[in-house]
């Protein structure tokens, strides 16, 4: 099995910020925590999901709560291990490996702590192929995999195992516990067999993150265009280039919502792009034209350095390239769109795959 080193985590975290599509929590804290665990415990083995036995048990782990709380109340580092072990004990059989819930943002690196502390491998894959804000927004949900039993633990040593009737209920009940735990806790969720991982998860995304991170770093070192490097590594498209103008933000029902206006430059000169976000970038429009929507990925990179820009970091005057990349095909099914399509987030916009939107515009 390939070993992930402290240095490789720099590349993985950079790639995770690209697929974080502007949200997914502060990758800085996540990276520091994972690197700390690796320094203490040694490298983490990356397990190819295709090497899982069908009846192996896999338990994904993640941070859940408000990213703004986590930058103040930093985890102890033990809660994620407690959550994992609580669920393992409840399940009554040994767990072969852990896995990331999201390939974007902070949670792509959180499970490295569990893997390093317990000396188990990390599966090369995730359950979204990007970052999304709610627990039920996972590809296994679409195949009927249940999120529960799940375990949740805080830094004080409290833990709970919950069972729910649907993955939507898991989100609701876990959210309530999280508030009492101080709005930041760690979870072990979606226990799956090796067969389920292979059939319902998005595979090889940790390797993808690393490749994106390496591509940006190397392009910068060679003074090549990092934007072109990213589109190459992700099958993505540059849908806009411009300068950030107005950024309107408001906090609503626990989510950071808002809209950024990007004044076009070069071929986009004279027009504005409006990018709406709710934690993540969700919809990109110019006038009446829709350029991209969720569940396809919309991400913003510094036009010069290729460094990903989060919704909190967005500010006036940034020169950015706006990229869109195709999402996992399962999100494009009617069942997938019901969970993460534009309609779920309150946009009355039909979903059209990004490849088709680009083809139609250039035709």
């Amino acid at each position, binding site marked *: 099995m390939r070993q992930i080193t402290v240095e490789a985590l720099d590349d993985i975290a950079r790639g995770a910020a690209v697929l974080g599509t502007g949200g997914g929590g502060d990758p800085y*804290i996540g990276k*520091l*925590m994972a690197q*700390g665990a690796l320094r203490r415990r040694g490298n983490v083995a990356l397990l190819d999901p295709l090497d899982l036995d069908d009846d192996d048990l896999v338990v994904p782990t993640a941070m859940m709560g*408000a990213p*703004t*709380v986590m*930058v*103040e*109340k*930093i*985890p*102890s*580092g*033990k809660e994620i291990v407690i959550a994992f072990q609580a669920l393992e004990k409840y399940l009554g059989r040994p767990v072969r490996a852990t896995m990331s819930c999201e390939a974007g943002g902070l949670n792509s690196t959180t499970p490295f*702590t569990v893997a390093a502390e317990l000396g188990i491998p990390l599966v090369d894959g995730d359950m979204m192929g990007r970052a999304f804000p709610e627990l039920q927004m996972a590809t296994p949900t679409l195949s009927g995999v249940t999120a529960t039993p799940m375990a949740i633990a805080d*830094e*004080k*040593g409290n833990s709970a195992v919950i069972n729910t009737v649907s993955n939507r209920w898991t989100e609701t009940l876990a959210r309530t516990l999280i508030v009492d735990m*101080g*709005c930041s806790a760690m979870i072990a969720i979606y226990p799956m067999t090796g067969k389920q991982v292979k059939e319902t998860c998005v595979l090889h995304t940790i390797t993808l993150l690393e490749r994106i991170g390496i591509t940006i770093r190397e392009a910068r070192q060679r003074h090549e265009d990092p934007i072109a490097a990213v589109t190459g590594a992700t099958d993505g498209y540059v849908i806009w280039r411009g*300068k950030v*103008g107005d950024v309107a933000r408001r906090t609503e029902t626990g989510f950071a919502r808002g809209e950024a206006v990007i*004044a076009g430059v070069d071929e986009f000169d004279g027009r504005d792009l409006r990018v709406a976000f709710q934690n993540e970038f969700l919809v990109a429009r110019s006038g009446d034209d829709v350029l991209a929507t969720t569940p396809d990925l919309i991400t913003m990179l510094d036009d010069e350095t290729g460094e990903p820009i989060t919704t*909190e*970091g967005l*500010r*006036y*005057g940034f*020169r950015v390239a706006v990229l869109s990349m195709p999402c996992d095909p399962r999100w494009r099914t009617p069942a997938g769109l019901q969970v993460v399509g534009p309609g779920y987030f309150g946009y009355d916009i039909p979903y059209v795959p990004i490849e088709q939107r680009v083809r139609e515009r250039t035709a």
Partner: protein
Amino acid sequence: MSRRIGIDVGGTNTDAVLMDGLSVVSKIKTPTTEDVTSGITTALRHVLASSGTATTDIAGVMIGTTHFTNAVVERRRLEPTATVRLGLPATAALPPMVDWPEDLAQVVGRSTFMVHGGHEFDGREIAPLDPEEIRDVARQIADRGITAVAVSSVFSPVNSGMEEEAGAIIAGVIPAAQVTLSSDIGRVGLLERENAAILNACLRPLAQQTISAFRQAIAELGITAPLYLTQNDGTLMSADYAEQYPVLTFASGPTNSMRGAAFLSGLTDAMVVDVGGTTSDVGALNNGFPREASVAVDIGGVRTNFRMPDVYSFGLGGGSLVQHEPLQIGPRSVGYRITEQALVFGGHTLTTTDIAVAAGVAEIGDASLVRQLDPLLVRESMARIKQMTDAAVDRMKTSAEPVPVIVVGGGSILIAFDVAGASELVKPEHFEAANAVGAAIAQISGEVDRVYSLASMSRDEAVADAKAEATARAVAAGADADSVQIVDVEDVPLAYLPGNATRIRVKAVGDLALAATA
């Protein structure tokens, strides 16, 4: 008479201006000296003598300095510091100084301690403070002979009580301790706020030494007027306060330049290009104040979350090296050695200043010494200087609309062209001393940051109370009551607290009320 002296102590030059009311009476640029104070004394003597001002007519001396920033950047003269964080059982995954560059951590030492305490976002305690645990840590700190201590606590911007209690316990065990509380300095974001507190703690001995040298320099000349230092938001703090919070002087240099540019040009909304010897800073003025950066700011490799002016620095200055084939301007510079090394001064290094003289846009040194320069090289270099400036201004502009561009700083002789996107190019009188002018005109602020219970008063009443208190504090700190304005109001409702509480932060700013000391 309301005469006052503004001094900007940069890494290369010390600038001073003597102002009478709103006009600049005299000014000087002199090299910054190793001991800092003799440069200040030279500058003070000059502005007093050349304007014929009696020392008794001086009502205030305002100093802006990069001295403390430089100490961090150069890892020099920093005091070994202990850090005590209240937050266990939370936060253990990332101990204090976890993200510090190793060389700086070595100098400051990694004497870090984590103890129980801290608050949740809603004000509940994560764990109770344990006085005996803190006393034990304090004894360990005392055993290591450390007296500089930084104290941080989770969510201390919401409730600073535990930091205050812990600070008092430590001071009880270590009588010589100088304790910095993170809640006195920064905002939400534990690592960043804690980092700022540690930087402040390790700078305090240097601050006491430097500021007492400032005081002495002023006293030796017979000036009895109060001494102020400028802070990162462009307002003043008393010398006594600055001794306790040297970290608040960070980034006051660019702020002073931009405030000075606004004052000298009479413009309140514009772009400012401050061209120094090695680098240029570009920033935007909104309502006469610099626009603030919204992201984490690195100081000497340490992440902090101060409110800093949003400034873009690029490697163009009056001393920048010019190389040809391929053409390259900066980022290397001859810096303060320009008067020995530039061609126009008889040296052997081709600099941007030589190019400007050869192009006929500046008259400095001996123009005959650059007459042999290839005209094509001169033309291409000037084009490159324009290109670099245009790109930097465009990067910092907030709209496509043309805006006025104010050019200040000693190196601004280079900017002899129309900057792209500028509605007009303004090079105000005294442009080279804008930073010192910014210090001289700096205002006084008063701040309130308090949690109000809304059980017995309305939110509006609470905000009005905070505004009145902030105004009173600004006046008490020396602001002219008629000029005080409320510049910032922030209120954050705190959920789950008994009695429905809200945290209100108000900042009031006014002109310094100047009275002659005799």
